[in-house]
């Protein structure tokens, strides 16, 4: 690696010492690193170190057909892959001027919200585990698996569904799916009470989460914090409502906000969002049987499909925050340029580096997890 660094020079006359969080560390989400300088047990400097998951997606996508890229994009954020597909599809549809059938729109909403619930369940598990509480993780991941089963039934893939494509979704729902979906939602909703007792109202957890990683409203706006993290600061903004896509403007849902901007508020916002997502899915279940029509606008030969020149910027609300795709076409059969704005790119780098300073070593991992940063979104 850098062999000169094994060479001796005297240590600086400072009492600071270095501690590495990650990439191989349970206190870090995924393959990511945070290098902190500590004084006693207080962080005086934190530097994020990304790139462990860098695959050069943006470069790869320039080499592949418009339609091929659908299989590439969900891999950018593993815990919450659906918004990636949807967002890319939306961008391409806008470029190509494709009309989206209504049923496809509803199905996309269904998936997006399912994926959000799954991601939040995963998030609670991870967040609980950083504070040393493993039972919510064991429960949460197991319950998330039930949602993955639904995905599998709907799309054929547990995690990467590759179900959305420019023009709609791949196929219609299987028979009886809505009933099973509804049952699972009932189950999950029932379980929420257990989670509340075990986790959300656990006094020790509340004690640990309150006052950790506080983001004020001004800071949130200055650092481009988005999504639940923004709403935890008391700012009511949601792409689904304020920059509506698909049929979100036809749905009724609240945007839960919290005040405080600390880890506790961020957790609570997500907890409340799950309820909202369940209610959205219920609305979809109710509406879907009445919406007839195709699920896909056919596109010409996908292998030789040329999208008119131009650019588009599509945004969706993923479970982590504002996800955006900037897609440029020069009229060819492949994208000329795709730029992915992952929400965690902000949270995991700039915000985390700033929040970690002054934080104690106990709280570094919790700060990162409470931001729900997803490293592959940074690395792409």
């Amino acid at each position, binding site marked *: *690696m850098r062999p000169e660094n*094994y060479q001796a020079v005297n240590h600086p006359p400072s009492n600071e010492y270095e501690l590495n969080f990650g990439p*191989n560390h349970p206190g870090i989400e995924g393959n990511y690193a945070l290098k902190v300088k500590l004084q006693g047990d207080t962080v005086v400097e934190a530097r994020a170190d990304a790139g*462990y*998951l860098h695959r050069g997606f943006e470069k790869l996508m320039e080499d592949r057909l418009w339609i091929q890229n659908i299989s590439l994009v969900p891999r950018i954020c593993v815990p919450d892959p659906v918004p990636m597909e949807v967002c890319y599809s939306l961008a391409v549809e806008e470029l190509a001027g494709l009309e989206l059938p209504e049923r496809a729109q509803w199905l996309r909403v269904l998936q997006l919200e399912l994926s959000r619930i799954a991601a939040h369940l995963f998030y609670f598990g991870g967040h609980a585990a950083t504070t040393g509480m493993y039972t919510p*993780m064991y429960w949460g*991941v*197991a319950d998330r698996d039930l949602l993955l089963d639904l995905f599998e039934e709907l799309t054929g893939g547990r995690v990467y569904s590759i179900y959305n494509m420019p023009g709609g979704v791949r196929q219609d729902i299987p028979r009886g799916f809505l009933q099973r979906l509804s049952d699972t939602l009932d189950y999950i909703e029932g379980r929420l009470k257990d989670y509340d007792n075990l986790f959300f109202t656990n006094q020790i957890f509340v004690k640990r989460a309150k006052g950790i990683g506080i983001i004020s409203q001004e800071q949130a706006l200055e650092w481009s914090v988005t999504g639940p993290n923004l709403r935890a600061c008391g700012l009511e903004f949601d792409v689904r409502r304020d920059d509506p896509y698909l049929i979100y403007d036809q749905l009724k849902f609240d945007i839960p906000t919290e005040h405080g901007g600390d880890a506790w508020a961020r957790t609570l916002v997500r907890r409340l969002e799950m309820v909202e997502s369940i209610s959205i899915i219920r609305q979809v279940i109710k509406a879907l049987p009445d919406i007839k029509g195709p699920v896909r606008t056919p596109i010409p030969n996908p292998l030789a499909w040329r999208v008119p020149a131009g650019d588009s910027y599509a945004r969706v609300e993923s479970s982590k925050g504002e996800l955006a795709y900037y897609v440029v076409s020069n009229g060819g059969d492949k994208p000329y340029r795709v730029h992915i704005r992952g929400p965690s790119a902000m949270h995991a780098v700039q915000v985390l580096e700033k929040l970690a300073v002054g934080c104690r070593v106990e709280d570094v991992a919790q700060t990162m997890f409470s931001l729900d940063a997803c490293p592959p979104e940074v690395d792409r």
Partner: protein
Amino acid sequence: MSNTDLSNIEVNQKPVAKRSNPFANVFNELVSFCRSRSMFMLHYCTGCGAIELPPAMTSRFDMERLGIQPMVTPRQADILLITGYVSIKTLKRVILTYEQMGAPKYVIGICSCTVNGGMYWQSYATAKKLDEYIPVDLYIAGCMPRPEAVIEGLQQLMAKIKTDEANSWKKYYEHYDYYLGNQQHLFGNNWQTPTDIIGEAKTYQLEGPNTLGEHTKILESVQRPLEPLEMKL
């Protein structure tokens, strides 16, 4: 480019000479059995396949039934799960981590990307063939493999360990020159990890004829000494 292809080279399979002492055999078998029934896997999410490990670990599939539990540091762990593509930056850490693990250590390549780069085959950032850089015991293909597949793979590894067939870690010591050569090819000639693999091979009599070679010579010429701090009186 790599100098030789190791896929055809058999590990120096000295069939462990059945010792005359029956107790010794029983003891060896006991240790092998325990190794297979107690596998600590390293908590290192190298890629997207890691998302299917929590389901495999937690309440639904429960790996602990099989004696598998996650461990935090490479010192404590036995299995290194390479869960998907390894970017070059990660690969360096993976090698460092692998070398820090105590033998016998096993590597499982999960996901298709570890076999041949998978869908990132033309990416400039990911390494393609994992077993050029570290020896792999078992691949679990799929993108990504389901938890059932992961557990099935782990059970196969258990069976291999039980019969003392999972010996890829010996391959690393015996063909260190080959692996080091590939690593140098990718990372440059001044590549060096803090772990003294050659010294370890010598200490534990794991050297083979191919432990040393032209690449280890390069290493020796650029290496900064990292001898252990001996007690001095």
